């Protein structure tokens, strides 16, 4: 199988599984237990914490493990909004966020918070000036996606962080698609909170983390015991956390090689598929994730292309994993001004370290044929519902 859906998830690296295995078997202790078995589990978690911290240049004590990137996003947005409720009830986010931020923001609106959703441009970029304009006296938290898993665009986080700081507003970034894919340095970026997840950098599912800058107060999302320094209750998923630590260490070691590899594959794919008639690259042409090539294909639907690609043993995505399942036009693409009809023809190829040039050539060979075939049998025709809207000339 030629796997091109690394934004959905990554395969586990064998070294990561090896590091995890003892914690499924003989090292099964509860990290809170005071005897040797528990202490060994606790030590393993603390080692993993240092490894994850090193990947993003944080201090170990600033990393809280969660069950996923989605939990980290929920924890960050709800935790800060509620902790700072007495200072204000206004939240700023963008229209290009993942569901775990978008739906969390909506849930906070129901609790009485006011949310401003910043628009993005045709590349999916947030303009820091728009963020600054949206800040009011009551604004307590800004949450912006670091890099979009749908269109690959990398947002100007450093600029947004500088103005958040100037206005004394807490900044959270959803870096789930960025950490492990590009160099990420919390100190250089100047962010207050950052979400990440292990399975985006060849670690296991079931482990995520939230970076919380030292001194930042946050209300817990899950109450209970004193795990994670009293900030996130629940007996720790020790094997997954150990795996996240190992995966982080490998990502830090190999980041440059990985990036170089997937960038070459990405550029080759964009070079060929981007030239197919009525196929458009989505997201920013240069400022995008190294292994990410996303397109909208006019006149046909993404689902059809995915099925026919799979028949050729090629696996890719259409929109985000969740929108693909719900058969809805991606809100991210819509927010970028792409017409709903065209957004249905979305395709996302995300490359990983296991992909080869041969894999990319297989797509370059098969996809244009698939597009041609589907357009021939499309009842809508080239001038039908899929036609892109003419650009305004005035």
């Amino acid at each position, binding site marked *: 199988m030629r796997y091109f859906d690394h934004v959905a998830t990554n395969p586990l690296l064998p070294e990561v599984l090896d590091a995890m295995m003892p914690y499924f078997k003989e090292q099964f202790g509860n990290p809170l237990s005071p005897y040797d078995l528990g202490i060994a589990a606790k030590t393993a978690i603390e080692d993993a914490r240092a490894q994850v911290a090193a990947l993003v240049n944080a201090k170990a004590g600033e990393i809280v493990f969660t069950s996923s990137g989605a939990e980290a996003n929920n924890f960050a947005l709800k935790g800060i909004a509620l902790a700072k409720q007495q200072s204000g009830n206004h939240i700023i986010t963008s229209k290009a966020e993942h569901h775990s931020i978008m739906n969390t923001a909506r849930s906070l609106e129901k609790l009485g918070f006011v949310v401003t959703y910043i628009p993005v441009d045709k590349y999916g970029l947030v303009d820091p000036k728009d963020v600054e304009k949206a800040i009011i006296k009551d604004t307590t938290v800004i949450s912006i996606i670091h890099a979009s898993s749908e269109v690959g665009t990398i947002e100007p986080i450093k600029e947004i962080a500088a103005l958040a700081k100037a206005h004394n507003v807490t900044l959270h970034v959803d870096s789930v698609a960025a950490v492990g894919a590009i160099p990420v340095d919390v100190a250089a970026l100047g962010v207050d909170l950052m979400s990440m997840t292990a399975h985006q950098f060849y670690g296991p599912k079931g482990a995520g983390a939230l970076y919380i800058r030292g001194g930042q107060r946050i209300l817990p999302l899950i109450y209970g015991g004193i795990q994670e320094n*009293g900030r996130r209750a629940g007996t720790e998923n020790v094997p997954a956390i150990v795996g996240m630590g190992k995966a982080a260490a490998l990502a830090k070691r190999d980041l440059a090689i990985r990036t170089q590899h997937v960038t070459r594959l990405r550029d080759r794919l964009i070079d060929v598929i981007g030239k197919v008639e009525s196929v458009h690259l989505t997201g920013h042409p240069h400022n995008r994730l190294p292994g990410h090539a996303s397109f909208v294909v006019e006149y046909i639907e993404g689902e059809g292309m995915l099925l026919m690609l799979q028949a050729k043993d090629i696996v890719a995505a259409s929109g985000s994993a969740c929108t693909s399942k719900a058969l809805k036009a991606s809100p991210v693409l819509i927010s970028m001004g792409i017409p709903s009809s065209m957004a249905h023809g979305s395709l996302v190829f995300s490359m990983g370290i296991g992909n080869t040039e041969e894999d990319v050539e297989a797509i370059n060979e098969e996809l244009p044929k698939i597009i041609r075939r589907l357009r021939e049998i499309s009842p809508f025709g080239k001038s039908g519902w899929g036609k892109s809207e003419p650009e305004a000339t005035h």
Partner: protein
Amino acid sequence: MNLKFVENVKADITSDIVYMMCPMHLLKLEEHMGELDEGQILELMTDYDGALEDIPAWCDNTGNEFMGIDEVDDYYKIYIRKARKAVS
């Protein structure tokens, strides 16, 4: 229970554990008392009401001095002075 209220206490160590879960107040208390020299003062910032009972009781048990609390906004500042001859 009679609580003493204090103001403008100058602490040697300040620990902000607001919104952290119980019993973090006791764990942090022990941790920081270990870092202090005799006669020095710990300021513990917490929103946990139970700390108002637990910390004086802990001080009674260990011989450290519970100096009092300062109520601010929606949390407490609790002051503890490390005893000259503390039991723990």
